[in-house]
């Protein structure tokens, strides 16, 4: 009996100990009062706007920090049936390219406009990865107002990073490709025929209008990411490269052979001088430049014909290569501009380069070789030092403005905090799971707001209620105001976020457009009041000049349309009040709805395919009588002469 009790006791202890034998993994609990730090009381506002790339959804999302709440999905490169982006006649030209209308893209990175290396938050730039483009979003209207296609580029990944006064937005090509008239070449001839183009897009300091100023013809590497120099390194740009092996097949292996690839340092001030001196060469290239006019509410697309190219093998002292271990992904400059951090995703260390040493090495011709005549600097001469044992798979680095850097580690699924001067690792926190980009508000600028940090992860697994095979992407918010990083919040995101930027809400929240003044509406089909509502026939085109105001459309009874006609509803929202959009859609339309903002005119194209009476209605719940906001359009068979007739809403 006594023996049995002992055995039972031993057994129980063994069972109790068994789970604790397994080493602890990345399962850290929330400590302290995290909830109150992310609680934004009802009716109060978040402290930061977080503009988050949507990755494969081709959009941006607007998120508040610290709450993690999503305020808006902002369509950029992808059509958005929710508000008619890419469906209305006015917005279709925004998605035009040299390949025609492209309804989707992959938006990876955000750049918020800067002045003196600080966010001014006038515009947000985003890149299209697949069909290379750069978009500019106006942050007073949260609307995409300009899209510029990038010629000679493929896989616009190293983009849209900007200089400290938004002088330039860059676009480096991920895929090197053959360019020009003879691009039908054997893929085997990669080394001879392929080029890696880097584009510098000038930004008008007043209007924000973009212009492809010049391109640099670089060797056929893969350009991955970039960051402008700032403050003391203002005037330089740093591009990470991989596949300096110049492989064109099975890159997984063939582009991972060298111990070191390069960070390409570009002296863009010097390049600017060469452009001014007429050293560029004009090359034929087709690319679309699309602009939204906020007074006509209409976009135009212009196909450009040529681009200015600089050849750095002839024009010395523009391009230098810094050896960087191994297949660097992120290249980031610290707030002072002195340090350049290369995150070699297959490397065991994080190398930190010194801008001062780089200039000295150039001065002293401290070269270890060259690439087609462009100098390769000596690694040791440029190196400030290496962060030892930081973790596995370093990808990106952000800064807190207090002397620390934070590097995301994809493979070991953590963020590592280290001292920029001493290169010592001072803290690490797990992420859930496999963090890609990380972001500190103002992190890439000269003046970071070192209060919060967000990890945007690639793998979600068990973090939320499961939703079948396809899951949301997870993000974590950390408090970085103290010595130790503290996990505060775990929140789902839209699309697949890559990079994001955040800035204080106070920069823009009082500058928001609330409606478009009707008197400034110069749309050719705009109506300024209900009196002019009408229907006109031009051949087989029917133009409906329509008004919408709570809660009616004028006209709302239309007859005299035939099968074979094309109907254009030009709907003007006459409201002059905030938050009163009206929507429009008609039965059987092969497009989407349109949402018309107050004071805006938007055009909905519809081709009736059969006779009948087709209802249309307001799709945005606008008022108490929203359900009454509707109308009918009669379609007669082809050849039947039903007189054109419309009523403008007289009470019966």
């Amino acid at each position, binding site marked *: 009996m006594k023996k049995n009790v002992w055995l039972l006791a031993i057994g129980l202890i063994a069972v109790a100990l068994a789970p604790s034998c397994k080493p602890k993994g990345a399962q850290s609990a929330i400590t302290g009062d995290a909830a109150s730090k992310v609680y934004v009381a009802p009716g109060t506002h978040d402290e930061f706007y977080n503009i988050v790339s949507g990755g494969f959804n081709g959009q941006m999302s607007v998120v508040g920090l610290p709450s993690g709440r999503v305020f808006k999905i902002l369509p950029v490169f992808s059509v958005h049936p929710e508000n008619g982006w890419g469906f209305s006649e006015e917005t279709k030209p925004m998605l035009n390219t040299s390949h025609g209308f492209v309804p989707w893209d992959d938006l990876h990175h955000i750049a918020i406009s800067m002045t003196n290396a600080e966010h001014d938050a006038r515009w947000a730039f985003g890149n299209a990865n697949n069909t290379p483009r750069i978009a500019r979003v106006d942050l007073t209207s949260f609307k995409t107002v300009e899209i510029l296609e990038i010629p000679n580029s493929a896989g616009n990944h190293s983009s849209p990073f900007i200089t400290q006064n938004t002088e330039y937005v860059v676009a480096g090509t991920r895929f090197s490709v053959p360019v020009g008239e003879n691009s039908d070449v054997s893929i085997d001839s990669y080394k001879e025929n392929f080029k890696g183009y880097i584009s510098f897009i000038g930004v008008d300091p007043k209007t924000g209008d973009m212009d492809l100023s010049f391109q640099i013809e670089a060797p056929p590497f893969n350009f991955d990411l970039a960051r402008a120099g700032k403050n003391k390194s203002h005037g330089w740009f740093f591009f990470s490269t991989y596949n300096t092996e110049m492989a064109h097949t099975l890159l997984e292996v063939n582009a991972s052979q060298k111990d070191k690839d390069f960070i390409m340092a570009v002296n863009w001030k010097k390049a600017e001088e060469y452009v001014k001196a007429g050293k560029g060469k004009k090359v034929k290239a087709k690319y679309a430049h699309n602009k939204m006019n906020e007074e006509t509410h209409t976009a135009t697309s212009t196909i450009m014909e040529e681009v200015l190219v600089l050849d750095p093998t002839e024009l010395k002292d523009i391009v230098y290569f810094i050896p960087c271990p191994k297949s660097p992904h992120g290249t980031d400059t610290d707030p002072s501009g002195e340090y350049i951090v290369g995150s070699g995703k297959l490397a065991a260390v994080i190398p930190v380069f010194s801008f001062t040493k780089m200039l000295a090495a150039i001065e002293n011709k401290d070269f270890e070789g060259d690439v087609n005549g462009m100098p390769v600097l000596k690694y040791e001469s440029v190196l400030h030092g290496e962060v030892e044992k930081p973790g596995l798979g370093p990808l990106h680095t952000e800064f807190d403005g207090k002397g620390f850097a934070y590097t995301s580690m994809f493979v070991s699924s953590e963020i590592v905090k280290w001292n920029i001067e001493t290169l010592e690792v001072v803290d690490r926190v797990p992420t859930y799971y496999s963090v890609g980009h990380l972001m500190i508000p103002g992190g890439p600028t000269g003046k970071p707001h070192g209060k919060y940090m967000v990890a945007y992860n690639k793998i979600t697994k068990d973090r939320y209620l499961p939703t079948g095979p396809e899951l949301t992407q997870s993000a974590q918010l950390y408090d970085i105001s103290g010595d130790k990083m503290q996990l505060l919040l775990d929140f789902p995101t839209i699309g697949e976020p890559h990079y994001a930027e955040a800035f204080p809400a106070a920069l823009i929240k009082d500058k928001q457009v609330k409606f478009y003044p009707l008197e400034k509406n110069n749309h050719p089909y705009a109506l300024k009041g209900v009196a002019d509502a009408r229907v006109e026939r031009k051949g087989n085109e029917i133009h409906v000049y329509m008004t919408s105001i*709570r809660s009616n459309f004028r006209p709302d009874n239309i007859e005299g349309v035939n099968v074979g006609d094309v109907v254009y509803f030009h709907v003007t929202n006459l409201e002059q009040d905030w938050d009163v959009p009206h929507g429009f859609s008609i039965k059987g339309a092969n497009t989407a709805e349109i949402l018309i903002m107050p004071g805006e005119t938007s055009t909905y194209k519809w081709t009736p395919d059969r006779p009948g009476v087709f209802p249309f209605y307001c799709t945005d719940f606008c008022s*108490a*009588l929203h359900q009454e906001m509707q109308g009918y359009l009669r379609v007669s068979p082809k050849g039947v002469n039903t007189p054109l007739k419309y009523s403008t809403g007289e*009470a019966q």
Partner: protein
Amino acid sequence: MKPLSLFNRILILIAALTIIPSYFTPLWQISLWAPQYPEGLNMKIWIDHLSGNVDQINGVNHYIGMRHIGDEMFPEFCFLIYVIGGLIAMGLAAFVIGRRWSLYGFFALIALFGMGVLVDMYRWGYQYGHNLDPKAAIKVEGMSYQPPLIGYKELLNFLAYSGPDTGSWILIGGACLLILAIVRDKMEKSIPLTK
């Protein structure tokens, strides 16, 4: 009749001058708040025009059949500038005359004007609130929408406020100066000045 003291005459002058801002400042305001309008809708009535969220108020009010508010709704806008001008002239005259009857007379004019404005506002508010389109979408049995004359009033989902605006407040200040002048004048009369 007895001449006024110099001080009281100056009070009359100041009171007359306080009418001048009526030309440059709003005289009356009407504000509306609703759950959907936390920031409020505000309409200001000036000497000869309206300003503020008049279009939004019209947009909201058409559901209950209220008339479209516009400058043409106020015939007062055609003659108010002359009435106010006349008041200023009378004030200046009272100052120049400087007799007790001129002070009393001017005060009486101002008081009459003030009452006239209130009566007129009430009349307009009554019309606006009761004279509803029979085809209105929303009809609430027995409900009328007369805005408050002065102060707050709840009208369906709206809280309405009506009251004087900058110009009127300055004018009321001027009227108070006249009262002060009258009181001073009375005291000078009842307490004979001794040497």
